[in-house]
C-alpha cells in the first residue's frame, strides 16, 4: 500500500477530488496526505471508498462533505460545514470547527478535538458527533437523530425544536432551546456514551458519569396553540 501526497499549492482542488473519486471501489492507494490546504473549500468532498485522507493544515467550507466510508483527518481547524451530510466513515478535526459542523449528517462519526462554533449538528439525521471542547449557539437546531457529545460547555438555545437526537453535555449549558429538556441518564445511556467517548478518542478525558443528557420534550410534535410562543 503506497501513500500518496497531494500538494494543493501545486495542484488544483479538482485534480485532488477527481483523483480521490476515481478510487471508488478500489483498495490500493488508500492512504493520502493533502498538504497546503490553506483554507480551501470542498477538500475531499464526496468520497465514496474506505480511503484514509490526512489534511495537513486548516480547511475552508465543507471539507469531507457527504463523506461515505472514508476517514478524513484534519491536522488543523475546519471551516464551516465540515462533514456536512456525512453518510458513514469518520472525520477527525484536531483543531476547532467553524459553524454548521456535521450539519444534516446521516451517519458516521465526527470528532472535533477543539471547540465547535455555532450550529454544530444542525438538522443532524443520525450522525454521531463528539466535541472535546465547547459548542456555540443554536447547536443541534432541529436535530432529528444521532448523538451529540460535548465535553465542554454549550452555547445558547441548545437543541431548539429538536426531534429524537440525543445530546450529552459535560459542562454548562448557557440555555436550552424551545422543547429541549434535561433527561434522566439511564443505564443504556451510560453504555452508549462510553462507546462514543472511546470512538471519539475522549475516553481518557471524561467519564460517562460526568455528563447530563438533553432531548426533546416532544411538545412541539403536533401543533398546539398553547405552545405558540415557542414557534
Amino acid at each position: 500500500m503506497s501513500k500518496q501526497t497531494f500538494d494543493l499549492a501545486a495542484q488544483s482542488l479538482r485534480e485532488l477530488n477527481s483523483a480521490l473519486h476515481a478510487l471508488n471501489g478500489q483498495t490500493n492507494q488508500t492512504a493520502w496526505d493533502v498538504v497546503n490546504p490553506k483554507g480551501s473549500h470542498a477538500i475531499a468532498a464526496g468520497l465514496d471508498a474506505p480511503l484514509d485522507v490526512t489534511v495537513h493544515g486548516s480547511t475552508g467550507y465543507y471539507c469531507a462533505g457527504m463523506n461515505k466510508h472514508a476517514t478524513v483527518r484534519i491536522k488543523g481547524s475546519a471551516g464551516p460545514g465540515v462533514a456536512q451530510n456525512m453518510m458513514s466513515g469518520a472525520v477527525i478535526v484536531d483543531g476547532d470547527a467553524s459553524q454548521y459542523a456535521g450539519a444534516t449528517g446521516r451517519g458516521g462519526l465526527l470528532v472535533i478535538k477543539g471547540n465547535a462554533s455555532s450550529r454544530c449538528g444542525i438538522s443532524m439525521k443520525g450522525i454521531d458527533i463528539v466535541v472535546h471542547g465547547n459548542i456555540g449557539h443554536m447547536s443541534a437546531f432541529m436535530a432529528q437523530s444521532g448523538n451529540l457529545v460535548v465535553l465542554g460547555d454549550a452555547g445558547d438555545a441548545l437543541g431548539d425544536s429538536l426531534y429524537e437526537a440525543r445530546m450529552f453535555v459535560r459542562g454548562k449549558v448557557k440555555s436550552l432551546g424551545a422543547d429541549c429538556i434535561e433527561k434522566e441518564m439511564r443505564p443504556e445511556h451510560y453504555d452508549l456514551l462510553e462507546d462514543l467517548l472511546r470512538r471519539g478518542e475522549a475516553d481518557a478525558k471524561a467519564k460517562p458519569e460526568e455528563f447530563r443528557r438533553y432531548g426533546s420534550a416532544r411538545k412541539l410534535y403536533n401543533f398546539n396553540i398553547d405552545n405558540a410562543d415557542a414557534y
Partner: protein
Amino acid sequence: MCGIVGLFIKDPALEPKLGELLTDMLITMTDRGPDSAGIAIYSRPDDGLAKITVQSPNPNTDFANLDKDLKEAIGKPIALKVKSTHAVIELPMDQVDAARSALTHLRPEVRVMSSGDSLEIYKEVGLPKDVAARFDLAKMKGTHGIGHTRMATESAVTTLGAHPFSTGSDQCLVHNGSLSNHNSLRRMLAHEGVRTETQNDTEVGAAYLTWKMREGATLGEALESSIDDIDGFFTFVVGTKDGFGVIRDPIACKPAVMAETDQYVAFGSEYRALVNLPGIDNARVWEPEPSTVYFWNH
C-alpha cells in the same frame, strides 16, 4: 454579501507591511465579492495635520490645480497626493471643515471618502486585485486597516456603493450580510439630519453609528445599541483612530474568523484570508460570539 478582512498591528515592526498583508487578505476574498473592493488604512498621524481622502469620477480635471484652488479658498497651505481616482489632501487640522465646504462648490463632483488625521479610504468598482493595484495598496504602511470585497445584493455596483463607509472623523465601517430595516432607518436618520448618499444598506449602518456617537454614545455603546435597532444579518467591522471593533448580529450566520498573536489581531470572513499571515499556525484562532462587541485599541 461580501468578504471582510481586518488587521490590527500590535508589533510596530510589522507596520511597514500592513498594506502588503492586508492586500493579500483582500484578494483572497475575491470569490465572496467580485464587484468592488475597498480598503481603509490607518497610519500614525503627523502632528497637527489632517487628511481628507477624496474621489472623483473625472480625476484628470477635478484634481488638476485642486491644491492651488483650495489654498486660495482657505488661505492655508495644503498638499495633494493623487492616486488614480482618489486623492489625499493634507492640511492643518483646524481647516478640515473649511476645506470640505470649499470643496463642495470648487469641485461639485468630488466625494469625500474619509477625513481625520490617520485614515485614508480607497475604494472602486472592479476585482479586488485590480483595485489594489490601482491604488498601490500593498506599499502602504500603517497601524491597522480594514478591507472589503463586495457582492452587491440590492444596491448598485458603484464606487459610492463600495465599502468601507466613513462614519465620522477617522471612523469607518464594513459589513457582510443584508440589513432588513435600512429604509426606515435611513428616513429616521434624514429627519435627524444625518445624510446618506446611496441606497446601500451598509451606509445606513455607518450613518446610524455616526448619529449615535453624535448623540453622545461611545463607539462601543453605539455598536451595542445597533443590535437592538438594526434588523437583519450583519457582521460589522469598524475602524477607529486607535483600533478596530467587531460585532455580529444575534443570529450570527455570516462567517467571521479572528486570529491573534503577539504581533497582530486579524479578522477574516474565512480562514483562507488569514493563511499567509506570519505565525498564523500558532495564532489563537476563534469565531466572535453573536451580539458581542469586540474591540482592540492601541
